[in-house]
């Protein structure tokens, strides 16, 4: 049963509350092309302010909050049938973020970003999307605030998820199939991002919308955890929870988990709520990566950021969760991981889909290929000996109704081979450019 609460009036800024300053980004090492370019702001200043450790609470602009109220607060649901099927006495809760036009938690920051870009006079948003949740969220947000929208979609998803394309096009966006890799490897999000960035740089009145990994995007998503805190309290849960989300851009795991760190600066990590970022065993960026400056795309137009990374050249594999096929972790999540405020775990694809199937059978919820990782991790945590001590909350960040292709692959044996052990995954980053003074490894 859902406890009645209100949509928060402010986002939570962990950088300010815990006095964390992220390493300054550095200029790309990739040659961007012919000649010097004028310097230009890609992101409105108002958004960049939200990525700085200035205020612990950032007021949500009223037009954005009104948009949130169309579908929020979202339910926090006890997964009693799942618990019974697992044979556990742990208490598992599902924070269901799938009930909006985009079917995804990503709509939270898409709306906020579209608002600030519209206020800054931008008339077209250009972005890249892997599985399509982000593209749909941006298309819907652009439509809401009267902006144009162009979306570069990873080829695999463009071909396999026509329903996603239709939805984006119904919302007024133009969807472009991004280029294939010249080496015939499956094209990942990085290639689509490069195409979007390049187009935006050459289009007047348009801006590339960064997507999910910026600190302000995670800040916008803290509505998830702020609601969950109230809901857990209303349900009589007093112990610090274990908070679980898959790791893509960091919005769902950060959005759910970070508000639980509010007002607890200086406490030892083992005395804090446990925030678990779940990765694919093929992309264990937090679990096996190194903390270094790395290029985020191939254009040379984007800066290098400090993050846990497997290296820009890391080949990965064609896992079904397109939104997790990226070589680096978000800078904010990386900084929190380095400080012990976020932990990580990596899982193999088949077992993840097994758990997603169990969730569907018990709770009637179909998780996206990405959210399935959170489902599986929550199931595994529920099997731990001390699982009764604290409630387990996982974020059902997106529904899986556009992922029929992924589930079909699961059913017919079309998943990729199991990833090698994390210790055997090589880093494709040269042994340079460590983050000085940050204690990186």
């Amino acid at each position, binding site marked *: 049963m859902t406890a009645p609460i209100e949509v928060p009036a402010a986002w939570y800024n962990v950088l300010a509350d815990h006095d964390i300053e992220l390493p300054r980004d550095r*200029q790309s090492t990739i040659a961007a092309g012919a000649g010097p370019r004028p310097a230009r*702001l*890609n992101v409105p*200043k108002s958004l*960049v*302010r939200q990525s700085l450790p200035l205020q612990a609470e950032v007021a949500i602009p009223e037009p954005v909050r009104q948009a949130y109220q169309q579908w929020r607060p979202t339910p926090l649901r006890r997964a009693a049938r799942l618990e019974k099927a697992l044979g556990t006495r742990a208490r598992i809760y599902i924070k269901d973020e799938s009930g909006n036009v985009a079917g995804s938690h990503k709509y939270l920051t898409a709306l906020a970003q579209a608002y600030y870009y519209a206020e800054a*006079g*931008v008339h077209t948003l250009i972005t890249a999307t892997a599985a399509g949740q982000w593209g749909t969220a941006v298309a819907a947000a652009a439509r809401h605030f009267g902006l144009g929208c162009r979306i570069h979609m990873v080829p695999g998803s463009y071909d396999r998820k026509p329903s996603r394309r239709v939805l984006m096009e119904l919302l007024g966006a133009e969807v472009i199939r991004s280029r294939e890799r010249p080496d015939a490897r499956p094209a990942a999000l990085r290639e689509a991002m490069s195409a979007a960035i390049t187009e935006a740089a050459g289009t007047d009145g348009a801006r590339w919308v960064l997507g999910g990994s910026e600190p302000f995007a995670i800040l916008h998503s803290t509505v998830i955890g702020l609601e969950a805190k109230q809901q857990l309290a209303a349900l009589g849960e007093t112990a610090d929870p274990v908070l679980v989300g898959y790791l893509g851009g960091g919005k769902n795991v950060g959005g759910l988990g970070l508000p639980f760190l509010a007002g607890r600066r200086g406490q030892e990590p083992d005395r804090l709520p446990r925030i678990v970022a779940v990765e694919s065993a093929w992309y264990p960026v937090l679990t096996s990566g190194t903390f270094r400056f790395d290029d985020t795309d191939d254009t040379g137009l984007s*800066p290098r950021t400090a993050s846990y990374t497997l290296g820009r050249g890391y080949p990965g594999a064609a896992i079904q969760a397109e939104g997790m096929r990226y070589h680096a972790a978000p800078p904010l999540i990386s900084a929190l991981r380095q400080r012990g405020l976020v932990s990580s775990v990596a899982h193999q694809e088949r077992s993840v889909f097994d758990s997603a199937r169990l969730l569907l059978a018990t709770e009637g919820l179909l998780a996206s290929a990405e959210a399935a990782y959170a489902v599986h991790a929550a199931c595994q945590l529920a099997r731990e000996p001390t699982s009764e001590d604290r409630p387990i909350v996982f974020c059902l960040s997106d529904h899986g109704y556009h992922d029929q292709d992924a589930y079909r692959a699961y059913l017919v044996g079309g998943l990729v081979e199991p990833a090698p052990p994390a210790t055997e995954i090589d880093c494709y980053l040269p042994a340079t450019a460590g983050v000085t003074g940050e204690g990186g490894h």
Partner: protein
Amino acid sequence: MSTPQQTLEQVIEVLRREVGTSDRIGADTPLAEDGLGLTSLGLTRAFIALEDTFGTDLDDAVLIAADLVTVGDMAALVDRSRHGS
């Protein structure tokens, strides 16, 4: 109210801190990779620092629309914004 030269000096000071350099910075110094090497985010952070320095709010719409080549371009924009032109 400060003069354009004073604004330029303040801008140079902010950029020097943002970039972390003791090299000469003048009105003709390019902002991007052939000069100070500022990233887009670095440029935005510099504008935020200038807002705090001058106690003023720089219009997002004006900043987003601007193509800035040199430090002088940036200082002129700040000066226009502060004087309402």
